[in-house]
């Protein structure tokens, strides 16, 4: 039965288990699912990575193009993140332009990269005020089994680390491509850790079943120094301030674990 509605018996089961500190798949409350990372999958992209977090699967492709900078930041490259919840990923995804969930996902991933200054945008300026490089990060969700945020953020980071730009020289205002490649200048490694609140307990990396039962979710993104660089509460419930601070501490240490794995490749 593949409908998005979760049966009541399972709901109760999940909630009960969480109260006892357990989860359906046997994980600890603060454990991520097993994940696999593959890079360089999309051959036509300048960089790409696919993350499988449990059964959630997200593919991120990076394309680099030349464009005009924003008028108030004429000497920096441009980052733009888009997310697609493609219909084949879940019976609950409908075709059409990005809905609020897709927009939110894109903006959370964007915030992590942008606020941690992961990409050295100042090194992507070709001619101030006229030409800069635009980094397109396209998040493609291929299978939804919960926690699209962490999977997407990880895949985006891995894809950026995988991205190679062509070498170039600027001659008379024009870009002349030279042989060879140079990696995209990535200076920081933001990692998102998402919590779900069930029966007043926090669990890390909710699976789809758990997401359907949760009161609310909280995503905390940390950079390589353990600073918090992005936060997003979602869902119809709430967190107490104590829960938020507790989550922040866990996010810092879990984030560090994930970061090591992604950066190592």
């Amino acid at each position, binding site marked *: 039965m593949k409908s998005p509605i979760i049966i009541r018996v399972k709901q109760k089961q999940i909630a009960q288990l969480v109260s006892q500190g357990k989860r359906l798949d046997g994980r600890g409350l603060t454990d991520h699912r097993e994940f696999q990372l593959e890079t360089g999958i999309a051959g036509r992209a300048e960089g790409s990575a696919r993350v499988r977090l449990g059964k959630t699967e997200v593919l991120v492709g990076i394309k680099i193009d030349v464009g005009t900078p924003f*008028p108030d930041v004429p000497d920096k490259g441009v980052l733009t993140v888009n997310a697609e919840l493609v219909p084949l990923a879940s019976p609950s995804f409908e075709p059409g332009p990005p809905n609020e969930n897709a927009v939110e996902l894109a903006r959370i991933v964007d915030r992590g990269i942008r606020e941690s200054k992961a990409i050295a945008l100042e090194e992507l300026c070709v001619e101030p005020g006229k030409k800069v490089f635009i980094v397109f990060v396209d998040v493609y969700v291929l299978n939804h089994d919960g926690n699209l945020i962490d999977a997407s953020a990880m895949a985006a980071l891995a894809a950026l680390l995988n991205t190679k730009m062509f070498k170039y020289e600027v001659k008379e205002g024009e870009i002349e491509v030279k042989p060879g490649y140079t990696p995209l200048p990535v200076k920081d490694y933001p990692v998102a850790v998402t919590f779900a609140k069930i029966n007043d307990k926090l669990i890390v990396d909710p699976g789809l079943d758990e997401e359907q039962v949760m009161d609310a979710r909280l995503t905390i993104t940390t950079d390589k120094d353990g600073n918090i660089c992005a936060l997003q509460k979602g869902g119809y419930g709430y967190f107490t301030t104590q829960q938020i601070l507790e989550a922040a501490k866990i996010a810092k240490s879990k984030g560090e674990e994930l970061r090591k794995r992604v950066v190592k490749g």
Partner: protein
Amino acid sequence: MSKKKTEKLIDKKGIRIDGRELNKLRPIKLEVGVLDNANGSAYIEQGKNKILAGVYGPKEVHPKHLAISDRALLRCRYHMAPFSVQERKSPAPSRREVEISKVIKEALEPAIFAEYYPRTSIELFIEVLQADGGTRCASLTAASLALADAGIPMRDLVAACAAGKVDGHLVLDLNDVEDKEGEADLPLALIPSLNAVTLLQMDGKATLEEFEQLVNMAVEGCKQIHKLQKEALKAKYITVKEEPKE
């Protein structure tokens, strides 16, 4: 034309560019029941922000297939008027507006007794007429009042306030310049009687310790705003309460 970064956002005495101390809110004016057609409405001015919130419902859901069988559907549209910002903004909803609409909706949901009105929808419309930083928090503050004004039963009002880091200092209720040029901005919404944080986001960078201080600061700001909200609701009806002269 590139924008020049403001020289110093906070002076040596700890005074901000608009004359405020680090932990002070901007002046706030709240008015309830300002629109005639809407079932409930409220208007807020916070610093230079001017925002109107209107509520219709509970009413029939259109299209019908979106109706939820055991509760009301809360729909929210946060929208900025084209003339609300310095450079004209296109009237079409931007991705930022879509996201803000979503987080505002999710911030208010825990406060309303949606389960009392199955198969209906409650429509909340927020129009930013003039923007000066922290619009999502100010919008939330007004939206709570609009819902209460519409007679929708609520567990409590939701108050919202942002804290942030500017020039290395932790400050309350950032204005537009501080938001754009500061190091971190953390909007937060609180249901005080439940100690429930229903909206929490952050842009920028903060250490774990700073983060804790920012959360506490924003919570304090919310509690102050909550008092103002209650006064505004009562003010609308205070004249009704007075006994007529014999």
